């Protein structure tokens, strides 16, 4: 016959042992997690995680580029990208989206970003790819606003052309099928005195974008300069540079139109 302990303390002891086992398992998991980078699935989201990640990997909308993709200037932070994502989701709940846009990114930065493992993996999995790039190149690389240095602007444009080619080649290399929607540039300074000069530059760069995109299949240029041409104040954020929510709404409308065409399968690279 053994001496029995009180039930409550025996229960406590069992709870303590259970805690020990659970925590030891957690500890073991954590150590393998941190030390062994054996989990080779970065960015692959658990299908059951949240509803925004629910769905097939092949229904991925990928956003690349600068602050426009990021959504800077939109008061609710959505930008064109999240609006399009929401619209797509109304038709198919399984569509997921990854926004890789980085504020202030130039074409040079994007060529590097696109080399990253995780970005390349995402590119492979994408069904649609949207790109906004060039604004930062154009308005930083062309001298100050008051005094546009034409020679410098030309050098920057040539560099941009090369970078854009490199970006589109890389995208196609990773994913030959997904349509790429490349936004054109717009002139945020159309209301200023020097507007002729800046407009000329934007037009020239937009021509570059069209020319480069024609070299690749399934690259759709989505022009937006017309929206901002007549009444830029109405569609620009208070920083006079980024679009506001109305501007982004327009951008998303344009993109949806372009994607609709894609849905009917009648577009062949510009």
């Amino acid at each position, binding site marked *: 016959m053994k001496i029995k302990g009180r039930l409550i303390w025996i229960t406590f002891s069992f709870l303590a042992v259970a805690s*020990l086992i659970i925590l030891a398992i957690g500890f073991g998991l954590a150590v393998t997690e941190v030390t062994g980078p054996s989990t080779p699935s970065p960015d692959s989201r658990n299908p059951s995680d949240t509803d925004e990640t629910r769905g097939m990997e092949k229904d991925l909308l990928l956003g690349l580029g600068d602050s426009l993709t990021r959504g800077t200037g939109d008061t*609710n932070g959505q930008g064109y990208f999240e609006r399009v994502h929401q619209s797509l989701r109304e038709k198919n709940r399984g569509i997921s989206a990854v*926004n890789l846009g980085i504020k202030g990114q130039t074409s040079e930065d994007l060529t590097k970003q696109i080399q990253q493992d995780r970005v390349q993996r995402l590119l492979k999995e994408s069904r649609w790819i949207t790109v906004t790039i060039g604004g930062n190149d154009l308005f930083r690389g062309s001298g100050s606003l008051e005094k546009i240095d034409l020679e410098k602007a030309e050098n920057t444009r040539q560099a941009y052309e090369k970078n854009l080619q490199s970006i589109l080649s890389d995208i196609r290399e990773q994913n030959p099928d997904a349509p790429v929607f490349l936004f054109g540039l717009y002139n945020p300074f159309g209301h200023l005195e020097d507007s002729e000069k800046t407009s000329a530059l934007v037009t020239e760069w937009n021509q570059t974008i069209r020319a480069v995109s024609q070299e690749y299949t399934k690259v759709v240029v989505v022009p937006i300069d017309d929206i901002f041409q007549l009444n830029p104040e109405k569609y620009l954020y208070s920083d006079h540079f980024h679009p506001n929510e109305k501007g982004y709404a327009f951008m998303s409308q344009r993109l949806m139109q372009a994607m609709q065409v894609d849905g009917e399968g009648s577009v062949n690279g510009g």
Partner: protein
Amino acid sequence: MHNWVSLIYNELLKMIKKKRVRVILLIVVALIPIFTYAQYRTVQTTIEQLGTSDWRTVLQQQIIDSQNRLSSSRLPDEWRESLKLNIQQQQYYLDHDINPAAPGAPTFAREFVEESVSLFLPLLVVVVASDIVSSEHAGGTIKLLLTRPVRRWRILLSKYLALILLVSFIVTATAVLAILISGVIFGYSGWNMPVLTGFSQQNGELVTDHVHLIPQWKYLLMGYGLAWFACAAVATLSFMVSVLVRSTAASMGVMLAALISGNLLTQLAPTWTALKYLAFTNLRLTDYLSGSSTMIEGMTLPFSLAVLTVWSLAALAVAFTVFTRNDVLA
């Protein structure tokens, strides 16, 4: 085998009957609502300042704030590095549309363990661990304990195992209480929220090659598992001190001083790399999980685990040698 169960049960019974454990749980129960409210206030203040409750804007704002701090020339280099890493990480959350602070009890519990692993939890552990042997000396019961037909090392080992069980219980109870109490305000959802992990550092760069998402419940399990290891190391050191020092107050004092100076030193002298060989500078194990930068260069999870293990083994060796060899004088 039955003998072991009996011995450990005895020690557990003594510990929980002593009210200390109940006091500790009460402390946790009393403090968590305060932490919860503090967290709630922080979120509210941020929303007020930004005029929005959208976390993307909040995160963007945080990034901008950090960038502004970066441009200040008075910032020490060490801080600059960790700030840069933070920005990169926040940017990553933003890029992947992941809300790092999605309110919810699991998120609170996750942040709670990340903040409490270096001081709050160890303090609780020190309070229970430091009197485990010294109280037997102080109460004179050591004479009864050591005149049983049980070898001294078995008695000490049963005490140690009981202590580890109790520490496990306290860590789990803290997690459960944190979730239950904070959920009243934040709600109980967010278990499956994806959390990023797998960040590592090389030469001050945040290496995101192995970054991936895991559901938050798994992250919680791992975070509290790491906290448990840190607490077990603290318990082991307190255990040794408790064997060496006959008075409970003194042994608690020694441990508290060591614990707090360990915390202070990492903040005061982050360039003094020799500090990384101390036990108490290696308690922030959850940082390796969340990808927060460590204060001292060259610290990795295996390194910290090794340091804690070596200290613990040394402490056990000292404790067992002293306890089995020493005469029990009045």
